[in-house]
């Protein structure tokens, strides 16, 4: 596509042990992503979207082939190097928001910055900026149980974005949200993609998400069926 991909996968295969044999979840995936893409892996349940996203996010390793993420070969990374990569360059958004229930909105968003050892005043500013992006500055001191689903997912977006990662990986981010909230957070992410040039990579089968994507990669049965570039 271009000469400067930030993520490439090459003949990526993922096998899971199943009974006596094994199950092929990914059957040779070749993909390239450039900086600033707003792309999605689309496919029916069980097609391998999460598996692929986890490997790109260095949460899992390929069985064969390689995934190069921001210059790093995922299959070669030690646990420590993988953690380092996630800490510095990747943001995650999940279907179940995975917020820390006993911590305030501020503290939840602050957590990645603690790992990166920012000073308190830097953290203060960065967290408030991130909460402003998602429109939640009035809820800094609330705790997740007191928030709506849409608000929770916006906190999760702020948490993923606060360190301004190169890539955000979002696995079914709208699955637990109603239409209005889904559009709301998708607009937020679209805006961040535009303003901060952050690369977004989704896994989804939600039509609402699909309608926002600039690139649609259709997965069926662990293989790429189509790869469509919009606009």
């Amino acid at each position: 596509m271009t000469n400067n991909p930030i993520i490439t996968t090459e003949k990526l295969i993922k096998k899971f042990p199943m009974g006596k044999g094994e199950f092929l979840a990914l059957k040779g995936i070749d993909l390239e992503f450039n900086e600033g893409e707003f792309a999605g892996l689309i496919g029916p349940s069980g097609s391998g979207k999460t598996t692929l996203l986890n490997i790109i996010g260095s949460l899992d390793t390929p069985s064969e082939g390689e995934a190069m993420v921001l210059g790093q070969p995922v299959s070669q990374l030690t646990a420590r190097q993988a953690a380092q990569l996630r800490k510095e360059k990747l943001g995650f958004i999940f279907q179940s928001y995975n917020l820390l229930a006993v911590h305030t909105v501020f503290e939840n968003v602050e957590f990645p910055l603690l790992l990166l050892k920012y000073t308190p005043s830097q953290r203060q500013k960065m967290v408030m900026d991130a909460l402003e992006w998602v429109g939640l500055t009035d809820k800094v001191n609330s705790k997740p149980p007191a928030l709506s689903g849409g608000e929770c997912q916006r906190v999760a977006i702020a948490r993923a974005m606060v360190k301004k990662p190169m890539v955000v990986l979002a696995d079914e981010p709208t699955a637990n949200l109603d239409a209005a909230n889904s559009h709301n957070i998708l607009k937020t992410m679209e805006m961040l993609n535009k303003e901060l040039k952050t690369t977004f990579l989704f896994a989804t089968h939600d039509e609402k998400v699909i309608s926002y994507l600039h690139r649609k990669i259709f997965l069926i049965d662990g293989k790429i069926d189509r790869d469509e570039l919009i606009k």
Partner: protein
Amino acid sequence: MIKFLLKGLVRDKSRSWIPTLVVAVGVMLSVFLHAYITGFMNETIEMNAQFFNGHVKVVTRAYADEISQIPNDLALLETDILVNQLKVQFPDVQWFERIHFGGLVDAPDSLGETKTQGPAMGMAVDLLSPTKNEVQRLNLYKSLVRGNLPQKPDDILISDFFAQKLRVNPGDTITFIGSTMNNAMAYHNFVISGTLSFGAMALDRGAMIADIEAVRFALDMENAAGEIVGFLPAGFYSSKVAHAMQSDFNKVADETDVFSPVMLTFEDQGDMATFVNLAHYMGAIITGIFMLAMSLVLWNAGLLGGLRRYGEIGIRLAMGEEKVHVFSTMIYESLMIGIAGSILGTSLGLFFAWLLQTYGLDISATMKGASIMMPTVIRARITTADYFIGFIPGVVSTLIGTALAGIGIFKRQTARLFKELET
């Protein structure tokens, strides 16, 4: 980061207060139980020491060999010299001459004919000396049921149970029939001054306590005594001190003379060695059991807590925190919980033990039939061991529990944490 984790710990009650309370309860129980058992065992040891064994006891070599038969024909002679020697060699120890003797008691009716008879086990001690040391040691004031303590040489105390069996009362005269030191027949008339209840069947069945001078006269044991018992200055038995005294005393003993005096420790008599050892190892046994039980409980609690925290752990890992770091923060948390719980539990355990040590618990009603000498008032005894006996297992088992749970979580693939999270 530490502040962040502390906030989480304090705010999440199921992560902090509940495990802390679990640890505290376990630690409290083990501290209390240990103090209670130590108290009970020591009280049993002391009771047997006061009445029978002494902390140490000096007898003749021949008497020692047949000590269970109380062979007064093998008694110590010239005991006044021997007692003085002992007082010089061990000035802090209290020494008392005693004679145990057995025989028949005959209670006459108003015409002088035998009304009732029964076998009796007697103990002769110094009842009349102004210091009243033995009276206090044997707790005779408190044991008195009817009548008075002896005032005259021929006054005698018998157990109330025995008195009722013989149908005699304080003020009555009874005749003791036994054998002298030289195996001749011995008769002596005693006047019952009072009756006693010891609370232990072994003693209540046929016990009598007489003044040693009267018994010496009756049994032809002038300046002799079956045994000289010694009591340590600390007030309770110490195996170490007793054995040191024993080797000190016995090294000059004449091994060829069967009548030469030898020293026995409390443990050398009867089955007391087993008992003393048991008392000694009780701490280790309780600690072991407690540690095992607590580890299992806390392991489960840790597993449940860990499962509950899949989301948190998963997200922390996803955000790039290293597994080792997550694991070590869990260990730190458990350390804090273990320490807090142990401090709380030890304090509570010591408090309840202190209550039981100070006020005691009267269990005489449940002890009616006991045939061995056991205390009827349970008192805990707080020893230095109690300050750490719950502490170490409390902290260690919390750590083990968390570590096991943590390992269980971290053996899973990071990606799997999310899978399990989302289903």
